[in-house]
């Protein structure tokens, strides 16, 4: 995922046009207009409530992987592997929604993390509205996370289909949860050139696909600016254990090292955001939950941590801009 595959192609007969040595975007800042170039270290420090150093943003992913997932344009992490019907991966993923999630909720409670953001595939909310009730009862925020893990947004998907997926996700989640649903996360962080415009048109105020920062920053869309929120994608439990195939303790070590760095940096540079993303189908397994607990206990029991939802962090950050 991080490195594109390098192909071996026939060089004989290949030629490079001279236009390949023209660089139309070679100038100050970025090579696109979505956001400005900005060094984190040079920004005005942000102060979180009660002088907290780190805003802790726990995200829990509620995912549905359809059996008939197409591998187009690629498979989301956790997608089906075998020929149809891949019951083994389908059921392993749905384990998270039936069993794993409750271990994760207990782990958060035990670590004193009383609030999280629930990223729902709208299909999960329809299939299991009980989970939405549980999330509402806990006072968590519902964030839109597409329709399901098969409906990816990408360049090449017709615009009307992309807009329909976005609308279906957001309107379904607003209806079932009764929440305003201001946050967005694209399945597999996959976007077309227009995704930010389409989500902003539906009233989305922040999203977390762009993993290029450790603080929120303004992102331009055709419906005005929205907020790009940081997500430490590389220490997401599924990334560590499924993508990287690291061992159980490696997850704990990476969360701790990330947290320590943020915590220290906040001492001199102002508040930081640490996002921990949890997939109940991964972390909620009986042999793995202990490691999630260890990581959450380490982070949650620190002083100067502000446990917040995506909207709370966005609003506090906006006030200070």
């Amino acid at each position: 995922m991080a490195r594109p595959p390098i192909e071996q192609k026939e060089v004989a007969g290949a030629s490079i046009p001279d236009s390949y040595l023209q660089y139309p975007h070679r100038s100050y800042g970025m090579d696109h207009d979505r956001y400005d170039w900005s060094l984190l270290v040079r920004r005005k420090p942000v102060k979180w409530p009660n002088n907290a150093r780190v805003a802790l943003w726990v995200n829990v992913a509620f995912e549905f992987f359809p059996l008939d997932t197409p591998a187009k344009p690629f498979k989301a992490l956790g997608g089906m592997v075998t020929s149809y019907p891949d019951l083994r991966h389908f059921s392993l993923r749905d384990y998270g929604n039936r069993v794993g999630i409750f271990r994760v909720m207990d782990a958060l409670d035990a670590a004193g993390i009383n609030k999280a953001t629930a990223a729902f595939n709208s299909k999960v909310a329809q299939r299991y509205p009980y989970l939405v009730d549980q999330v509402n009862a806990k006072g968590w925020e519902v964030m839109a996370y597409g329709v399901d893990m098969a409906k990816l947004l990408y360049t090449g998907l017709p615009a009307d289909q992309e807009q329909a997926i976005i609308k279906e996700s957001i309107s379904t989640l607003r209806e079932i949860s009764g929440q305003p649903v201001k946050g967005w996360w694209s399945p597999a962080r996959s976007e077309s050139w227009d995704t930010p415009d389409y989500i902003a048109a539906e009233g989305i105020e922040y999203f977390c696909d762009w993993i290029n920062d450790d603080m929120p920053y303004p992102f331009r869309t055709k419906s005005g600016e929205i907020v790009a929120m940081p997500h430490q994608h590389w220490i997401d439990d599924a990334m560590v254990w499924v993508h990287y195939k690291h061992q159980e303790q490696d997850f704990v070590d990476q969360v701790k090292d990330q947290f320590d760095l943020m915590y220290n940096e906040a001492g001199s540079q102002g508040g930081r955001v640490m996002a921990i993303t949890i997939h109940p189908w991964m972390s909620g397994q009986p042999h793995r939950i202990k490691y999630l607990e260890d990581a959450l206990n380490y982070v949650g029991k620190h002083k100067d941590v502000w446990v917040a939802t995506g909207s709370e962090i966005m609003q506090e950050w906006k006030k200070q801009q």
Partner: protein
Amino acid sequence: MKADLGLYEYLPWNARPSIKWPNGAKVAFWVAPNIEYYEIDPPVNPLRTPWGRPVPDVVGYAERDHGNRVGHWRMMEVMDRYGVRGSISLSVALLDHHPEIIEACKERNWEFFSHGIYNTRYSYAMTEVQEQAIITDSIENVKKHTGQMIAGYLAPALTHTERTMDLLAKNGILYTCDLFIDDQPFPVNVKEGKFISIPYSLEMNDIIVYNGSMVPPRRYADMLKANFDRLRADGAKNGTVMCIPLHAYAVAQGHRLAAFDDALKYITGHDDVWVATGREIAEYYYEHYYDEYVQAIKDFKKKNPARS
């Protein structure tokens, strides 16, 4: 296509002159941060696809952008802490895109060498005129923005032509980072002039380790220490070179920086290490060992001719 470009001669480890680094150091140690710009929508190249996903590849692009927005400063401060000056493998267009980073490196007296214009523009199948244009662009723009003449070259995204080394030598560049043949500098065969290879370890390259081999961060620190320990031990007999090639977008992610700090502290905590730059190592080798090595290669070849 050829089976071998004949870029270097065979001179085995146990049959070569002994290198002594300044002040009796056993290892010449250099850190080479790649400061790169990857275009969000690069032109199509017939031989390589820049991004793994349809553009915009949000994860790939944003991952790399994090290195410039966030990671570079963190990496630089760790290097400051241990007195290590970077030898920068630079996407030359970054001089235009992110001059603040360039200024900070200049203030620290870091060295700049070329890593092509963008890391999303590949050299394969280029004509001599085209490849020369990239080298000229690199020399002129690095000079203009930093006052430095580039001493080294790491081909953009490690993409070459058959004549890359000849062109680099012809343009007065001192060394290449693109050959992984040795733990010491080594003469490279070029059409005109002198040219050498300096060890730039792919094995220790953070991207290869983290994104290729998928190694956890603390294990990377162990690997760096083990690499150093062995090169230092072997360097007691014949001076070696250790290189850590870096990318802020990998090594300076929040969950990885502590491991780099740990390794750098360990390595620079030894007093028989020459903490150097690419240019310093190359110049020292040219001055003290290049001629001796060229002679040793001739002698070895004479005694051990290839057989048909």
